[in-house]
């Protein structure tokens, strides 16, 4: 939009940005405090990080969380992309709208509903709660976001591209691998990353379907936080913050790469939980 921002406006956003980031930095700063509470900084130490790395249980949970995130993102990206192609291929308008409405149910449902209904579902199937129920749940709630990231790219693709490939003698499989997939690749990558963040961010759904033996970082943080402050969590926050930064960095590097070799992405994706 036209017009430059006013002085007052700039001051306003700086204040809000400060408020947005103070809790995060507060958390990280105290991970270096040589004390036991998040009050009165007691001098610099890396002790909490040391404790965190020595914590075998925490390390296992961390690896489990990453494994769940990567596996679920991989599967949801495959199924979500296929779903996007299916939705794109629907001939009738109301068919497409119905599919899209069904698709968005998991995106707009409150987490507790997803968690509770999946819990009922797995119990009805007699599937034991643990790694597999968590993995399936994550795949399930990541699929719709992948679809929403891929579908716009497909819709953007001129139908004459497909016709041209067909016209030149390409088979459906060749069209898919040589034309469609390369064209929608940026959407697929964005969907994959979005799926990873959904997985890493999720607490409520996992909390419902995780059972006793298996835990992810979110659930672990919750149960520790309920017992009060432990600066080991602060150290974990510090590490996860760096991890997020790296993820964001990779994501935007890929985006920018696509940007330079394609059209400009002028909309920001809205991440949701």
């Amino acid at each position, binding site marked *: *939009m*036209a*017009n*430059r*921002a006013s002085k007052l*406006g*700039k001051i*306003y*956003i700086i204040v809000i940005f400060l*408020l*947005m980031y*103070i*809790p*995060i930095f507060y*958390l990280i700063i*105290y991970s270096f405090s040589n004390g036991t*509470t*998040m*009050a009165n900084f007691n001098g610099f130490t890396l002790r909490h990080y040391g404790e965190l790395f020595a914590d075998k249980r925490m390390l296992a949970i961390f690896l489990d969380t990453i494994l769940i995130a990567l596996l679920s993102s991989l599967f949801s990206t495959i*199924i979500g992309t*296929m*779903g996007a*192609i*299916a939705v794109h*291929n629907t001939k009738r308008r109301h068919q497409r709208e119905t599919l899209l409405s*069904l698709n968005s149910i998991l995106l*707009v*449902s*409150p987490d*507790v*509903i997803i968690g*509770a*209904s*999946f*819990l*009922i579902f797995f119990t009805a199937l007699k599937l034991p709660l643990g790694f597999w129920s968590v993995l*399936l749940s994550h795949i*399930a709630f990541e*699929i719709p976001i992948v679809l929403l990231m891929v579908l716009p790219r497909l*819709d953007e693709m001129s139908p004459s591209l497909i016709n041209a490939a067909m016209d030149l003698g390409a088979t*459906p499989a060749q069209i898919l691998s040589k034309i469609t997939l390369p064209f929608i690749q940026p959407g697929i990558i964005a969907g994959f990353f979005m799926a990873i963040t959904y997985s*890493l961010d999720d607490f*409520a759904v996992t*909390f419902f379907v995780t059972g006793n033996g298996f835990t992810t970082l*979110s659930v672990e943080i*919750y149960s520790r*936080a309920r017992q*009060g*402050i432990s600066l080991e969590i602060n150290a974990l*926050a510090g590490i*996860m*913050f760096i991890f*997020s*930064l790296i*993820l964001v960095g990779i994501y935007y590097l890929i985006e920018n790469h696509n940007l330079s070799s394609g059209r400009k992405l002028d909309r*920001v994706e*809205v*991440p*949701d*939980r």
Partner: protein
Amino acid sequence: MKRSFKGLFYTPYILWLAMFVIAPVALIIYYSFFDIHHQFTFSNYRVFFESGTYLTMTANSVLYAFLITVISILISYPMALVISKLKHRDLWILLVILPTWINLLLKAYAFIGLLSHDGLVNNLFGFFGIPAQQMLFTDTSFILVAAYIQIPFMILPIYNSMTDISDSYIRASSDLGASKWQTLTKIIIPMTMPGIKSGIQIVFIPSLSLFMLSRLIGGNKIITLGTAVEEHFLTTMNWGMGSTIGVVLIISMVVVMLFTNTKRKGRRS
């Protein structure tokens, strides 16, 4: 041959829709008609609508979500407006997105420290001579922390709808003699309504069910619909009642969707 090739794409997706979208919703509705002894009954609904506790809880829950949403809009709209006018707005909006990549529970946990008796906020109060307050486990802190978490999700859709407005509308408006304020109220706000509406969608519905926040920040004082579902499913194991509350949550979600759904016209036909 062409047909079966296309069918290949439908199968996994439709399977997912059936198993993880339709079946769970159906199951939750089904379970809402069973009591704790697995007997078919309408008593869950009767209890819900006859006991004051559940209705008050629902009303409270809606009120909390409403306040969280309103506060988020009030803070986010000017944010989005200013950022959309900045030179490097892509970079600034990245700063809005970044906190959303940090785990919700870590942010909630930070506030346990910030708001505690010896935390940063009370230290600041002390600096101005205000006596330390009990801030954790109050309604206000719950609402403010929830709003803190939701603000980025409100800024983004509003920002997107602002960047969609072509410069020429703003120029046309001032060309025709509108003041800045008139341009804002008569052009910009109406044109960003779709963004505000999708912001409400993204913020209001989850705010009904932030059970982890009400547990960590609100203590056990604040019971929302989400907390009740969690309690019935994971603590008292009364899945029937939990499902009933879940159905109420689903219905309120549908109502919100109906109110905020703007038929988005396709950019490309």
